[in-house]
C-alpha cells in the first residue's frame, strides 16, 4: 500500500470513529430485554393456573421457573456490572469506599431482581 493510500485510510478511520451509544439508550434497551424475560414468566403464571390441575403439565412450570429466574438474573447482572464499571472510573477520586458502594449496589440489584421473579412463589 502506498503512503498516500495509507494516509487516506488513516483519515477515514479517524473520520468514522466508533460512536458510543447514549446512556438513555443503554438503560432503555436493558430494561426492554429484562421485560422480555419477565413477560415470559408472566405468561407462564397465567398458563400455570389453568394447567396445574393436570399432572402431565407439572414438569414444565417447575423447569420454567428455574430457567426464568436464571435468565432474569443474567440481565440483572448485566445492569449491575455496567453500574460497577461506571463507578470504577471514579475510583481514583473516591477510592475503595466507592468500590464498596458499587459492590453493595450490585448485590442489592441481584437480590431485588431475583426476588421480583421468585417473590410470589
Amino acid at each position, binding site marked *: 500500500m502506498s503512503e*498516500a*493510500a495509507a*494516509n*487516506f*485510510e488513516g*483519515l*477515514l*478511520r*479517524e*473520520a*468514522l*470513529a*466508533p*460512536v*458510543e*451509544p*447514549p446512556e438513555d*439508550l*443503554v438503560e*432503555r*434497551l436493558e430494561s*426492554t*430485554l429484562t421485560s*422480555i*424475560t419477565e413477560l*415470559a414468566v408472566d405468561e407462564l403464571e397465567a398458563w400455570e393456573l389453568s394447567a396445574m390441575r393436570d399432572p402431565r403439565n407439572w414438569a414444565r412450570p417447575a423447569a420454567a421457573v*428455574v*430457567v*426464568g*429466574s*436464571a*435468565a432474569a*438474573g*443474567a*440481565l440483572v*447482572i*448485566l445492569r449491575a*456490572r455496567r453500574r460497577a464499571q461506571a463507578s470504577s472510573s471514579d475510583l481514583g477520586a473516591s477510592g475503595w469506599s466507592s468500590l464498596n458502594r458499587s459492590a453493595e449496589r450490585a448485590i442489592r440489584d441481584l437480590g431485588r431482581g431475583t426476588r421480583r421473579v421468585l417473590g410470589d412463589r
Partner: protein
Amino acid sequence: MSEQVSQKPKAQLDAEFSELYRAHLRDVYSYAYYRVGDHHDAEDLTEQTFLQAYRHFERAQRESHGRPLRPWLIRIAHNLAANLYRDRSRKPALPIDETSTLAALHTTEQLVEGRDELSRVLDGVRLLPDDRREALIMRFALGMDNREIARALGRSDGATKVLIHRAIRQLHELVGDRDVANGRVSGQPRGGAVEPDAGGGQDE
C-alpha cells in the same frame, strides 16, 4: 432428535445473549448512526436490531457453527435500515449541506469540528452509493475484516474486497474533487481515475 440434543437451556441462551449485547452494542450503534445519519433513528435501529436478534438468537447460534455473530447482528441492522428507508421512501444520507444538523447531534462530529479534512471525508462518505458506504462503515468504524463484511453483506470475500477497494478510490476522488471545487489544494495525491461503473451505481 439431534436438534433436541443441541438445544440449550433458555437461561444459558439469555446469558450468552447478554454477552453478545455487551460486546457489540457499540458496533451496532456506530453502524446505525453512520448508516442513517440521525441520532434518533440510530437509537431506534439499534433497539430493533437487538430485539430481532434476541428472537432469532438460538437459530443463529446453531447455524453459525461457532463463527462470530457480529456479521449476523450487523446484517440485521442493515436489513432494518433498508426497510426503514423503503417505508419512508426517502434517501438515507443527509444532503451534504445539512451536515450542520448532524454536527449538532453528535459528539463524534463535535470532535471532527475544526478538522476540516475529516469533515470533508465524512461528506464524501455520505455521497457514496449505499453498498460502498456500508462497506466503509463496517471496515473503518467497526474494524471488521473482509470476511466479516462479506458475511454481513451476503457477498463473496472477493466481491467484498473489490467493493471496498472501489469505495476507497471513489471516496478519494470525491474528496479531491470537493477540494478542487472549493479552491483547496489536496495534500495527498489523487487516487487515480474512477472506473466507469464506479460513478454512483451499486457494485454487483
